[in-house]
Structures are given as C-alpha cells and as structure tokens.
C-alpha cells in the first residue's frame, strides 16, 4: 500500500480528514507545552517572591489597557549586550504571578524588566505626562489624563479573588482589605498605610506616587507598578552576586 493510495481513500471521507488534521496538529503543542507544567526545573525556586499589591495590580492593568506591551518588552535575554544595557537576565520565576505574562515581542522603546527603582517617581510622572519633556527625541504617546483620572479601587478585592482562582496565593485578609490597601499604599501618613506593609512586607513602596496627596489616581497605580518591575524577588541578582565572589 503506498502513501498516496492511502491518501486517495482518506480524502473521500470528511470525518477521516477532520480526525487526521486534529491528530497531526496536536502533537507539537502537546510535546512542547505539557512538560512545562510538570518539569520542576522550568521555574526556579524563589522563597522571597511576593505578590503584587492591589495598587500595583491596578497599575499593571492600566499598563495592559494602554497597550504598553506593544512597544516595551519585559524580558532581558541571556545576551551580553542586553545584560549590560538592562541588568541581569530575566528568570522564569519573576513572571510566575503574571497572568498573563508581558514579555513583549518588540522594543520600539527600551525593555522595562528592571525598571523598578531606576528613576524617581517625579521622573515617571513627568515622563508619562509628556515623554518629550524629559526625553526630547521620544516617540511615546503622552498619557496626561492618568493623573486626572481617579483609580477605580472599589472592586480590587474581586480582582484579587480572580487572581487567586488562577493560582496566585492571595490570602483572605488581602482580598478583604484590597481597596483600603490600594488607598493606603499611596497615602503614607494615614492609618491605611500600616496594613500594606503588614500584608505585603516591610520593603513595599508606600508613598504618594503621583506627587498629589489626598487623591488616588491612575497615575499612582501605574507608577507604583513601574517601580516594582524586577523587584518582586531578588532571585535574578543571585547568579551575578555569586559570580562576583
């Protein structure tokens, strides 16, 4: 029996063709994707890894909403020039809580995987209001309305709950206090601020991100997110530190 003879018969059966197409097309995905969930080494251990605070998560959602990922990657490749330009190469564990991941595919602007702490809050606010005020050659759009728009924080608890449903370890305490924690992280002198560091750790940034106290804006959320990029765990710094010793 030759192959073409077999095909000559197969192409007379619609259901046969359908099953053959599904079978042949499934193999690649099954072999490449399924093991990523089972092979233990795929994602490194990082006990110090923390989850996003409600304010940072809201900022991340603004980053997604505005399509920032279309021009900015968050994935430093294992290449010398990238490590020297942007910092230690990205580890899988660093995006463990990223539903979905924002590795990106294009750098019309620079990579942002290690942006956190690189610039001041004031710089970010000025840059987002009009990028050309701080980088004259920039082609980034201006996001002036972020600082004028109040953040919708009331339903952040529901967001945390959905994140927990997909596997992020938010506690009941975090979910119950999500809205006040979002407010507290951008209002350091209020009683709400304490809960943030209690639930998310002493190292959490608690400050007036947009420079305008008393009002929780989308600018607060986005800057809080940008300032935590690459800082949820120190795992990526370790190979570098070990090499220096």
């Amino acid at each position, binding site marked *: 029996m030759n192959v*073409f003879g077999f*095909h000559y018969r197969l*192409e*007379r059966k*619609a259901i046969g*063709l*359908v099953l053959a197409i*599904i079978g*042949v*097309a*499934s*193999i*690649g*995905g099954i072999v*490449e*994707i399924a093991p*990523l969930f089972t092979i233990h080494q*795929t*994602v490194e251990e990082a006990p110090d890894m923390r989850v996003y605070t409600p304010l940072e998560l809201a900022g991340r959602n603004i980053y997604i909403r*505005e*399509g920032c*990922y*279309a*021009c900015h990657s968050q*994935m430093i*490749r294992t*290449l010398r*020039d990238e490590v*020297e330009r942007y910092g230690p*190469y990205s580890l*899988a564990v*660093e*995006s*463990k*809580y*990223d*539903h*979905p*991941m924002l*590795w990106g*595919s*294009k*750098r019309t*602007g620079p990579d942002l995987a290690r942006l956190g702490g690189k610039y001041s809050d004031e710089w970010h606010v000025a840059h987002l209001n009009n990028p050309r005020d701080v*980088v004259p*050659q*920039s*082609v980034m*759009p*201006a996001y*002036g309305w972020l600082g004028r728009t109040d953040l919708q924080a009331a*339903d952040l608890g*529901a*967001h945390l*709950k*959905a*994140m927990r*449903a*997909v596997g*992020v370890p938010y506690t009941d305490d975090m979910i119950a206090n999500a809205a006040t924690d979002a407010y507290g992280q951008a209002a350091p002198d209020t009683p709400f601020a304490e809960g943030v560091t209690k639930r998310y750790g002493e190292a959490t940034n608690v400050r007036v991100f947009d420079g305008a106290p008393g009002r929780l804006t989308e600018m607060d959320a986005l800057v809080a997110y940008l300032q935590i990029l690459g800082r949820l765990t120190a795992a990526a710094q370790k190979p570098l530190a070990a090499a220096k010793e």
Partner: protein
Amino acid sequence: MIEQLSRNERQLSLVILLCLAVLGLSMAAVGRDDPLGAHGALVLLAAIGGLFFVISGYYAPEAGPERLHSYYDDPSKVGIVIAMAWALIGLFVGDWVAWQLVNPDLTFDAPWSSFGRIRPVHTTAVIFGFGGNALIATSFYVMQRTSRARMPDQLSPWFVVFGYNLFCLLAVTGYLMGSTQSKEYAEPEWYADIWLVIVWVVYFVLYLRTLSRRSEPHIYVANWYYLAFILVVAVLHIVNNIAVPVSFGHAKSYSIFSGVQDAMTQWWYGHNAVAFFLTSGFLGMMYYYLPKRAGRPIFSYRISIISFWGITFFYMWAGSHHLHYTALPHWVQTLGMTFSVMLLVPSWASAGNALLTLNGAWHKVRDDATLRFMMVAAVFYGLSTFEGSFMAIRSVNSLSHYTDWTVGHVHAGALGWVAMITFGSIYASVPWLWKRPAMHSARLVEAHFWLALAGTIIYVFAMWNSGIIQGLMWRTYNESGTLAYSFVDSLVAMHPYYIARAIGGLLFLIGAVIGCYNIWMTIRTAARSADARAPGEPAPLYARKPALEPAE
C-alpha cells in the same frame, strides 16, 4: 435577501435575534459603566437592527424550490463587501499608527487614539476583519463549487457572517475603551471569545454538512486547507483564551496561564494563528482561484498532499522560536528552531506548486493583473517563509528579535502574500458572483496592483533597514568595551525609515481605496444591466444562475 429564507428559517432567525437582544440587555444591565455594559448596548442594538431587517421582509413570498438547484452565493457577496470595508478601516488605522511613530502628537491627546490602543485595532481589522471575512466568503464559494452541492440551509451562513462580524466589532470597540487581554492577536476579552466559539462551531458544522452533500467523490485540496483553518484555529483559540473573569459584570479577566507557560501558550497560538489563519486558509483560496483564473490544473497533486500535511504537522512546533534566549527552557527553543527550518520544505513545495501551475499561462500573468496579484502572492509566500525559517535560527534571532525586522517580515507575509492573494481572489470572484463579464475597469485593477506592490516593497525595505540597524546598534561596543549607543541613539536612527514605512503603507491604502471603488462600480453596473434587460430576453451566459454542474 430575506425572500431566500424559508418560513422556518425566518422564524428561527427571529428567535436567535431575540435571544441576542436579551443577552445584550442583560450584559448592559450587569456591566453598567464597565466596557461590558457598553458592549451589551452594542449587542442589543445589533440584535434590534437585525430584528427590524428580518421583520421588514418577513411576509415576502418564499422563493421557489428551483433556487435549490443553484449555489447560494448571497452570503459570499455580503462577506466580500464587508471584507473590503474592514480592509479600508484596518489599512487606514495601520497607516495612522505608522505616522504616530513619526510624530507622536498624532494621538490628539485622547486616550482612545494612543498607539497602544489603536495598534490592535489595526491588527484585528486587517487579520480578522479583512482576512477572516475574505476567508469565510471565499470558503462558502469554493466549498459549494468543489463539492457540486448547495449549502444545506440559508440561515447558518448568515449566522456565521454576521456573528463573526459582531465578534470583530466587539474586539475593535473594546480596544478603544481599553478592554484587552494583552495577548497578541488574541486581545478580545472572555465574552467575545465565547461568542466566537459559538460562531465557529456553526461554521464548522456548515462546512461538514455541505461536504456531506457533495456529488464529487473526492474532497478537493482547497477544502483540506479551509478545514485545517477552521479546526486548528478553534483549538488554538479555546486553549489560549482560557481565563477567569473578575465577575460576570466585568469585561476584565485573568488568564489561567502565567509566566513561562503563558509565554509558550501565547506563541503557540500566535505563530499558529499565522499558520492556520494566514497560511492554511489563504492556501485554500490559492488552490481554487489561481488554477481557475489561469485555466490550468494544479501542477502536482502529490506535492499538494505532502505540503498540506507538512504544514499541518511542522507549524505547530514552531511557536517557541519567538522566545529564543528568554526564560523558556532551552530544549523547547531548540525544538522550535529545528521545526521552523524544516518548515521551509512544505512551504516552498506549496509556493512552487502554485508557480508551476502557471506554466503555459504566463502570458495571462503578463496581461491580467488579477492573475498577477495571485502570482506575486505566491512569490511573496515563498520569500517570507524563507525569511521566517531564517529568522527562527537562534543566532539570527538574537539580532532580529525585538526589532523592526520582525515587523517587516510580518508585513512581507501580510501585504505581499495574504492581501495580494485576497485581492486577486476577490477580483476573480466579483464578476463571477455579480454576473458580469469582467471587473468595471481592468486599468484600475492594474493601478491597484502596482500601488500594492510598490507599497509592500517600500514598507519591507524600510523595515529591513531599520531593523538591522537597530539590532546592530544595540549590540555595538566601542574600543573601551562598553556599549557604543544609547537606546535613544537607535531611536533617532529609525526616523527616516519610519517615514518611508508610513509612505509605503499609504500607497497600499490608496490601492485598496481604488479596489473598493472598482468593486462598487462593478456591483452597480450589474444591478443596472439586470434592470435594463427587456422582460423575456434571456440573460447572457455569464449572467445566468450557476447551476450545480461538473466544472471543477
């Protein structure tokens, strides 16, 4: 349109539209000021519009049973017109975003018009709006003719066409409101995704039901490709979009995948959307329209078998080449690279099969811009699949990834292959569908051809230059061993190429505008000449209803 529907189909369509209206109303109620609420209102409006339309024609007399002896082409006609409308929207927005990279203030300080929100409007409008509608319209045409069978009913093709466009509309308006999953080429949120699954199942069942009525014993090659397109896109779409919504009143959802697994799933989807949407589907188109227009049989039946199964098998492994040198395990990167290189064999077999089919008809390629559209499409298909395999090699990818080279590669495929084969097929089908001897103006087809070709070449060359310059500047070291250029230096170097790219895109857009005008004039003259014919005078041969005849 309604008179073609049987009484039962008219009633059923009213029921479906009523359900849709209720769905829209409840979405608007629970969503309120969330984008979901606005989308509920949109669904409600669409359903009410549909209800008015059906009711207005409800008491029209039913067309006679003799209609069942000819093909049902009305959905293809509407699909082609809608596809061209999406082409104008998609190409216009595409050129607008291109100019935004030349002058970033072209957003006019509005949230909805910034690059990040309208870039997916561009990609969705051209891929799903233009490409998807063209695929659905031509697949209806091709499956009936190659099976020598009429579609089994008159309602499900309309459900597919209008349902699919409702999805496209939800997608595009969602981005403008800031509603997106951020998954490239799968941006629409959960409710739009579920709706697409319903539409897609109806499409698949319609395809199988038509095939089961066929009077040809064999299923023609074009149908294998259309089937692979429908089936695999369904699998990809469902797996990649599994997500947990914040609540039923929120448009926002969180993907069940995260990090490295999500990256692999997204590029398994993303690359195979290219494979099964933008390649398989359009190869189906090519395997019907190119031999038909050239008047030559396909060069080799065996090559078409080998290339079909090669593409179906190899493509599904190739997605991980989008993730070279990232945190994705090395073994997956290597597999992706290997299969990407092997993919060149079935790809070039398809391109070669198409070009060799033209042997004996090259004089037609010279004289007929419609056939030339298809020929150039096959050439660009060959070029961009070679480029794709090349860029998937890890060391090449270290330079090309994240740069404009990728954008250039995508557009070589999208403009040179997908759009050209579509324009060629549409120019071939419009006279066939509207019963005209030819397009309104052959010279305008010629003008469109040269504008499209010039636009594509300018675009691709601009992006090759900018991409390679960018990649080299990022990795250039000076004598003291430090990086020679800042990121901003590389950005400034891109400026002239961004202008050239936007001009290339503009030429392509002007070509499409000319195409729309030409199609519109062809349809108008078709309507006029049908009215002008004296009663009882027989229609000319090209204007007769296509009977179910053996002609393929």
